[in-house]
């Protein structure tokens, strides 16, 4: 039985002897922004990387449980993992542009999806750069290395790069934590717009940010989901004692 776009059921994850995620059950609603909230080291980032199965790059990881995306179990499947990853764009804490030009950073995702030739690529690159409001800032220097951009611009470039793979879901791991306030608010605004077409999942430990932009909140503590619910309910009427303590700032 699945209610959300993504349904995480009885998920357990170990790194060697460490039990990182403990019986996690989450329903992530479609076309909304879900915020995963919690203090550092509670397994938020690991949870994100489990969704697109990046966590499998780690040596000693053991995963049990199910993750359904549109009623299809993406953990226990023969399907190629690259197909699953293409459905989810990932935005990490610090932007990680590819070691190539601005143009090629976007074109990379298009190329691995079989689109080639400058005539086909150029309009698409423009489209995705416009979508993140970066086009006007970089249109005259598309051949410059992506590393010449400011951190805030790089993060938007990474967002555009993720969108170019045509995902259904955008995962963002504290996407604004390394950015200056202005860049951060630009990214936040873009998230609000992206909700129309994508399902967004964002990790943060900033309460105010969660309150400002979330539709649905999941609160995690030490690898467990303590509470989840719509943002209003979560902040105004938390049910669990731990949540109340956290909202009061007890863990920070």
């Amino acid at each position, binding site marked *: 039985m699945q209610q959300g776009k993504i349904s995480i059921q009885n998920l357990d994850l170990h790194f060697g002897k460490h039990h990182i995620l403990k019986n996690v059950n989450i329903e992530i609603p479609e076309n909304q922004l879900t915020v995963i909230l919690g203090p550092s080291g509670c397994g938020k980032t690991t949870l994100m990387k489990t969704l697109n199965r990046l966590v499998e790059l780690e040596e000693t990881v053991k995963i049990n449980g199910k993750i359904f995306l549109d009623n299809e179990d993406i953990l226990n499947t023969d399907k190629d993992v690259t197909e699953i990853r*293409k459905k989810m764009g990932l935005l990490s804490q610090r932007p*990680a542009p590819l070691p*190539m030009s601005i143009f090629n950073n976007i074109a990379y995702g298009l190329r*691995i999806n079989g689109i080639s030739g400058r005539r086909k690529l150029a309009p698409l690159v423009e489209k995705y750069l416009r979508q993140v409001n970066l086009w006007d800032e970089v249109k005259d220097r598309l051949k410059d290395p992506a590393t010449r951009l400011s951190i805030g611009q790089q993060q938007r470039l990474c967002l555009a790069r993720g969108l170019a793979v045509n995902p259904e879901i955008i995962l963002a791991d504290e996407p604004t934590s390394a950015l200056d306030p202005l860049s951060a608010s630009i990214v936040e605004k873009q998230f609000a717009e992206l909700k129309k077409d994508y399902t967004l999942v964002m990790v943060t430990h900033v309460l105010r940010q969660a309150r400002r932009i979330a539709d649905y909140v999941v609160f995690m503590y030490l690898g467990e989901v303590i509470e989840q619910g719509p943002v209003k309910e979560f902040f105004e009427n938390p049910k669990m004692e731990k949540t109340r303590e956290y909202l009061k700032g007890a863990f920070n």
Partner: protein
Amino acid sequence: MWRKIEEKVFYYLMIISTVSLGLLLVLIVATIVYRGLPYLSWEMISQTPKGGYYFGREGGILNAIIGSLYLSSGAVIIALVISLPVSLAMNIHLKRRKKLVNGLRFILDLLWGIPSIVYGAFGFTLMIYLGIKASLLAGIITVAFFILPIMIRSMDEVMKNVPLSLIESAFALGSTRSEVAFKVMVRQTFPGIITAVLLAFGRGIGDVAAVLFTTGYTDNIPTSLMQQTATLPLAVFFQLGSPIPEVQNRAYAAALILTIIILVVSISTRYFGKRFRKTLIK
């Protein structure tokens, strides 16, 4: 009080060590230049030895120059074709198999440490087994074996230091492992790959023991892989032992040319290490 003395002692110790190192380098280069430069004429680098490399008083060392370049280039190409996939696999495809990769690194480090004469002996045995005579081909294969661990480990060392976030973000876009390897990793480590290749080339061209039994020696420039070939280190080795002064002079000229080639390679290694960096992620 004691700390001050200690400080002084170590300070002067370091100065002495550094100066003696510099002096040694200057002495070596000066000796080679002093003995080689007077004989480094156009004839020397444009002619093969006349009347035999050991007794002939005329001619130059073109056979050794061309032979060395053929030999090292061939060996570097073979080693590169093997090294690049191996180092990429170690850092991408086998990333989860840390024990295996570390075992591989250990073995490669051992192979790096084996003296080149052992590679020479191994190449010699292999030659006999395969029925190949001493030839350019046998030399190329032996030197390729010898520089293979150097090349793999140098590439591996650069690839190991690529930030995980970069690899992750490439995977997150839905890249296959080969796409991450050849489109992201190779691009990010390109200067390092060039450095590894040049380093291996320098080691290959300067080595005498690996080719002592395997290439033979000849006055002619080889025109096929199956012919014997001269190399610069062998030209030094054989001709320096000659009682004839003109032949000895050829040995010093060969040493000087070898030094110049290695110097050029070292400098371009540093140059390429610094260039091509503008698109790279730090």
